[in-house]
C-alpha cells in the first residue's frame, strides 16, 4: 500500500484567534483557526454546553452550499473529540480556509481530510478546549483493479470506482475499545454498486495509514528531544 502524499504542518500564529494551524497533503492545503471559549450570541447559547460553530471558506468565490455541507460533516467528525460541557454558554468558533484550488469537483475527499486534520491541530494549538482525543483523517480510494490507494493524487482519481474519507479519534485511555475509533466516514461507490467488503478493507487500510498522520501531528507539536532516546514514545 502506498504512502500518503508528503504531509506538511505549520502553525501560523494568526493574531486575532486563539489557535491556528495549516495542514497539507502534498499540494492540497487547508488552514484552520479556532477561537474559544468566547462570548456567544443569545440566540445560539446552550445552557449546559458550549456551542460549537464550524464554517468553511473555499479559495475561489464566496461560501456556497457545498461549503455548508462540508462544515456540517467536519463538525460531526470533530465534535466527538471535544468535551463541550466544561464551558456552558460559550462559543467555540472554528473557521477553515482552503488554500488550494479545487480542480477535481468529483473528488474532494483529500481536501476534506486535510480540513479535518488542520481543525484538530488548530484546537490543539489553542489549548483552551478540553478534548477527549485527536481526530485524524485520511482519504482512501479503490481502483478498478481492486488496488487500495491511500490519499490518491489527482492523476489517479479517474481510476477510482469507490472512495471516501475516514476520520478516527486517536487516544490512549480507558473506555475506548481500541486505540482509535472511527468517528466518521463517507465511503461510497463512485461507479457501479456499493460493496460492503470494500468498506471493511478500506477501513483497515485507513487505520493503518492514520498512524503516519498521527505521528506527523505529534512530532509537529513535540519537537525532537536530543539525547533522550526512545524511552517515552507512545505506541499506537
Amino acid at each position, binding site marked *: 500500500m502506498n504512502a500518503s502524499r508528503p504531509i506538511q504542518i505549520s502553525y501560523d500564529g494568526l493574531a486575532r484567534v486563539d489557535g491556528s494551524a495549516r495542514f497539507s497533503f502534498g499540494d492540497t492545503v487547508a488552514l484552520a483557526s479556532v477561537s474559544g471559549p468566547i462570548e456567544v450570541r443569545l440566540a445560539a447559547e446552550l445552557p449546559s454546553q458550549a456551542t460549537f460553530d464550524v464554517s468553511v471558506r473555499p479559495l475561489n*468565490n464566496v461560501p456556497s452550499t457545498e461549503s455548508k455541507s462540508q462544515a456540517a460533516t467536519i463538525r460531526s467528525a470533530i465534535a466527538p473529540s471535544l468535551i463541550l460541557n466544561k464551558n456552558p454558554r460559550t462559543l467555540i468558533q472554528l473557521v477553515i480556509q482552503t488554500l488550494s484550488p479545487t480542480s477535481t469537483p468529483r473528488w474532494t475527499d483529500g481536501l476534506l481530510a486535510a480540513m479535518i486534520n488542520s481543525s484538530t491541530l488548530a484546537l490543539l494549538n489553542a489549548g483552551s478546549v478540553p478534548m477527549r482525543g485527536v481526530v485524524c483523517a485520511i482519504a482512501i480510494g479503490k481502483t478498478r483493479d481492486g488496488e487500495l490507494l491511500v490519499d490518491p493524487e489527482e492523476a489517479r482519481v479517474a481510476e477510482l470506482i469507490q472512495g471516501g474519507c475516514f476520520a478516527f479519534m486517536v487516544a490512549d485511555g480507558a473506555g475506548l475499545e481500541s486505540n482509535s475509533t472511527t468517528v466518521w466516514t463517507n465511503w461510497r461507490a463512485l461507479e457501479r454498486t456499493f460493496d460492503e467488503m470494500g468498506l471493511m478493507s478500506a477501513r483497515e487500510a485507513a487505520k493503518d495509514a492514520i498512524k503516519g498522520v498521527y505521528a506527523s501531528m505529534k512530532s509537529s507539536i513535540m519537537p525532537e528531544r536530543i539525547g533522550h532516546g526512545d524511552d517515552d514514545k507512545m505506541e499506537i
Partner: protein
Amino acid sequence: MRPPSPSIPEKEFLNSALKQNLRIDGRAPLDMRTPVFIFGPELGWVDCSLGKTRVIAYVDAKMVKPTPERPFEGMITIHSELSPMASSEYETGRPSEEEVTITRMLDKIIKRSDALDKESLCILAGQRVWHIRLSLHFLADAGNMVDCACLAGIVALRHFRRPEVEVIGDDEVIVHSPLERAPMPLAIHHSPFCFTFAFFADPETPPILDPTQLEQRLSAGLMSIALNAQKEICVLQKLGGVPQDTEEVLRLVKVAVAQAKELSNTVDAKLTADWETRKVEVR
C-alpha cells in the same frame, strides 16, 4: 461578538506616546510596516502581510458570455468577505461597517479606476470573454486591512497568467494549456496602492500612517488615499472624523506619493524575483 473597548491604561498610554511622536511598535508616525509577500505554487496566489495583518488573494479566470450592453469587454468581480478568522468580531453573512468600507474601496481602486484593461479580456466579440475573479481572504486583522487587501489584490492580478487563446476564423476558439504555450499576463494599465492615515482628537497628535489594530480603534478619523507611482490619485476618501485643514491633507498626499514610489519598486522587485524561479526552459 464585538470585543470590549480598549482599557483606559491602553488608551492613555497610546495617546501620550503619540503626542511625543512615539508609536507603540517603535515606528515613526509616517512609517509603514514592511509588506511581506509569499507567492503560492499557482500563478495568481499571493499571501500579503503588513506586520500581523494578513490577506490572501487568489485570481482565477474563466470564459463566459459577455453582457449584451458591453459585448467587447471582459468582466472582473472581487470577492472580499470577512470571516471570523480575521477576528471574532466579524460574522459571516452579516457585513460589518469595516467590511462595507473595504468592499467599496476595492471596488473603486481596482474596478472603477480601470487598473485592469477590460477590452483586452475579449476573445470573441459578443460571445466569449474572460471573467476574472479576484477572491480576498482576510486571515488576521491587526489593523489597516484596506491597504493590505488592495496591495494583495494588485500583486495577485500582476502575478496571474491567463491561458493563451487562439481564434481561428469567426467562431473557433482554441484554449492552449499552460504546458503547450506560455500563459499571458493580464493587461494592467497602472498599479494603484492604498495608504491609510489615522487622526486623533488631540490637535497636537500628528496623523499616523498604517495604523495597527489599537491605533485604529482609538483613532478619531481615517483618511485613505489610493494612488499609483505616476502620482495619479485614484481615490481620496475621508469618511467623517476629526476635520483636517487643506494644508494637512496636501502634506499627507505628498507623503503618500513618496510611499507609492517606494512600494512600487518593492513590488516590482518581488514579482521579478518570483518570476525568475518559475522560468522553465524548453529545449
